[in-house]
C-alpha cells in the first residue's frame, strides 16, 4: 500500500515524540549518575558540569548495596530456576496429554495471576510468623521465605509461557523419538527440551526480571540482612541528604544486566509474552 505524505510525517513526528518519552528517564539516569553531588542539589542540569565516576564508587558505601545486590541475586536466581523446573514438567503434561482435570488445572493456574498480591501477602506473613513461633522454622525475614513468596507470581506465568513454547515444538519430534525407542520422558529430555531451549531461557530471564523488581513481598518479609535491591534502594533517600547521583548510579548498575538480557532475547520473550493474546 502506498503511504500518503501526511501519514509518513505523522509517523516521523509521533515516533520521535514516543522515543523521547521512552528514553527521557534513561537520559536522566545516565547523566545524573555521572554528576558530582553539587550538580543534583541545585537546579536541574541536562549535562554534568564535570563528568565523574564518584557516584559509582560511593554508592557502595552509603548503603550496603553489595549485600542487597547479593540478596536480590540469590533470591531471584533460585526462584526463577525453581519455577522453570517445576513449570517445565507441568507444561509438558499440559502440552502433550489430554487428561481429566487438564482444563481445571490451566484455569486455576491462570486465574491466580489476576489475584492481587496483597491477598497473599497478609496470610503468608501470618503463616511465616506463626511457623517461626510454634515450630521454630524461621521463614519470616529469611531468603527461603522470600523465595517461596516469589513463586506465587513466577510459577503461574512460567507454566503459561512454557505451554506456549512446548506447543510450538512439532509433535513429529516426539514421534521420531518414540520410533527410536524412547519413552515419553526420554523424548521429553532428549528431544523436546533441547528444541525448546530458547523459549526456556526466555521464561527464565522473564521470571528473573519479575523477581528482581518485586517490591510488595520484599518490603515486609525481609529484614536488614536479607533486604533486596528493590526495597534497599530507597535507603539513599532516608539519609540526611538525598544522594540523587548515587541513586541514579545504583539504578543504572542494577538495571543494566536485566535490560541487556531482555534486549538480547527480545525476539523469544516477545513471542512468549504475546502468545496468549495472539492465539
Amino acid at each position, binding site marked *: 500500500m502506498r503511504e500518503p505524505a501526511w501519514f509518513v510525517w*505523522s509517523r516521523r513526528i509521533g*515516533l520521535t515524540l514516543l522515543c523521547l518519552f*521512552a528514553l527521557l528517564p*534513561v537520559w536522566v539516569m545516565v547523566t545524573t549518575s555521572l554528576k558530582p553531588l553539587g550538580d543534583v542539589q541545585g537546579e536541574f542540569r541536562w549535562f554534568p558540569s564535570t563528568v565523574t565516576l564518584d557516584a559509582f564508587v560511593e554508592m557502595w558505601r552509603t548503603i550496603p548495596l553489595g549485600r542487597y545486590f547479593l540478596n536480590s541475586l540469590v533470591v531471584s536466581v533460585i526462584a526463577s530456576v525453581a519455577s522453570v523446573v517445576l513449570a517445565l514438567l507441568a507444561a509438558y503434561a499440559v502440552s502433550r496429554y489430554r487428561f481429566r482435570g487438564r482444563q481445571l488445572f490451566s484455569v486455576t493456574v491462570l486465574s491466580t495471576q489476576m489475584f492481587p*498480591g496483597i491477598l497473599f501477602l497478609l*496470610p503468608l506473613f501470618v503463616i511465616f510468623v506463626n511457623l517461626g513461633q510454634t515450630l521454630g522454622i524461621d521463614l519470616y525475614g529469611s531468603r527461603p521465605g522470600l523465595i517461596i513468596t516469589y513463586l506465587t507470581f513466577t510459577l503461574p506465568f512460567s507454566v503459561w509461557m512454557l505451554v506456549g513454547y512446548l506447543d510450538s515444538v512439532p509433535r513429529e519430534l516426539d514421534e521420531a523419538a518414540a520410533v527410536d525407542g524412547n519413552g515419553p520422558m526420554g523424548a521429553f529430555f532428549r528431544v523436546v527440551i533441547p528444541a525448546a531451549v530458547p523459549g526456556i531461557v526466555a521464561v527464565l530471564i522473564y521470571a528473573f526480571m519479575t523477581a528482581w523488581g518485586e517490591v*510488595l513481598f520484599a518490603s515486609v518479609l525481609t529484614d536488614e540482612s536479607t533486604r533486596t535491591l528493590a526495597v534497599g534502594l530507597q535507603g539513599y533517600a532516608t539519609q540526611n541528604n538525598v544522594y540523587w547521583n548515587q541513586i541514579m548510579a545504583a539504578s543504572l548498575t542494577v538495571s543494566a544486566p536485566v535490560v541487556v538480557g531482555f534486549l538480547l532475547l527480545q525476539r523469544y520473550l516477545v513471542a512468549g509474552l504475546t502468545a496468549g493474546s495472539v492465539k
Partner: protein
Amino acid sequence: MITANPAPGAGTEARTGSSPVRAVPRRRKKRQWLPYLLLLPVVVAELLIHIVPMLIGVGMSFLGLTQFFIRNWTKAPGVGLDNYRFVLQFDEASGKALLHSFWTTVQFTVIVLALSWALAMAAAVWTQHAFRGRGLVRTIFLIPYALPVFASVITWSFMLQRDNGMVNHVLVDQLGLLDERPFWLIGDHSFWALIVVEVWRLWPFAFLALTAGMSSIPAEQYEAAAIDGAGVLRSVRWVTLPNLRSVNQVLLLVLFLWTFNEFTVPYTFFGRSAPEQADLISMHIYQNSFVTWNFGTGSAMSVLLLLFLLAVTAVYLLLTNRKSSDA
C-alpha cells in the same frame, strides 16, 4: 493471557488423531498416570503458595486479628462479619477513605488504560510496515518495559522533584509556562504524575501485543481494502481493528487487572506513603494493614477487592464472548 483463550494447545487432538503413528493413542492410555505425576510438583506448590494462603486469608477476614494476635493467631477471636461491616461503614472515616481509594483506583485505571492503548495502537500502526530505523524504534519502545520498575520509577520521582527536578526546570525555567514550581509528588498533581509514570511503564506491553496481533493479519486484506479505495484510516478501521478483536479482548483485561492491582509503581514513586489524591487500592490496604496491624480488616478489604475483580472479569468475558459469537 487469562482464561479468555481456548486452553493452550487446543487443536492438538486433531493433529495427533490424523497422525500416521497409530500406536500413539494406545500408549497414552496405558500411561495415563504420567501427566498427573508431572503435574504433581506444581499442584503441591500451588496448594502451598496459593490455595492454602488464600483460604487462610478468607478465614482471617472473619477474625479479630489485631496486633496482639498476629504472633499467635489461634487465640484470635472470631468476629463474624464485623470486619466487613467496619470497612464498609462509608459514613465513618475509614470507610470513606476506602471508598475514596476505590474511586481513585477506578479513575486511574480507566485513564491509564485509555492512554496506554491509544499510544500503543498509534505506534503499532506507524510501525506496521517496514521503514528504515523500524527495528531501532521498536527496541527503544521496549526499554521502559525492560527496566526494573523500582529503578525507572525512582528516576521519575527525581525528575518530578519540585526544586531540583527536570520537569519543573523545563516548565518553569526553560519554557516559562508556569511562574510557580508545582509539587508533583504531593497534592492534586500527584494523581496525574502517577498516571504519566504508569502509562510510560505500561504502554510498551500493549504495543508488543498489538504489534504481534497485526503481524498475523494477511496482506491480501489490506490490498483488497486499497483496491476498494480505502485510505490509511479506513483500512485501520475496517481491516486492522476487526482483526485485533481477540487480541484486544485479552489485552484490555490483562491491562485492567495489572493497573487495578498496581503496587510497585506508587510504592516506589511516593516512598511508602501515597498522598490521598493518588491513594491506589493496593497501597491503601497495605498501609492500613501495616500501620494499624489489624490484619482482620486488611484481609476483609483484600477479599472485597478480589470479589470485585472476579465480578468485573466474569461480566467482561460474558459480554465480549457473546458479542464475538453474535458477529
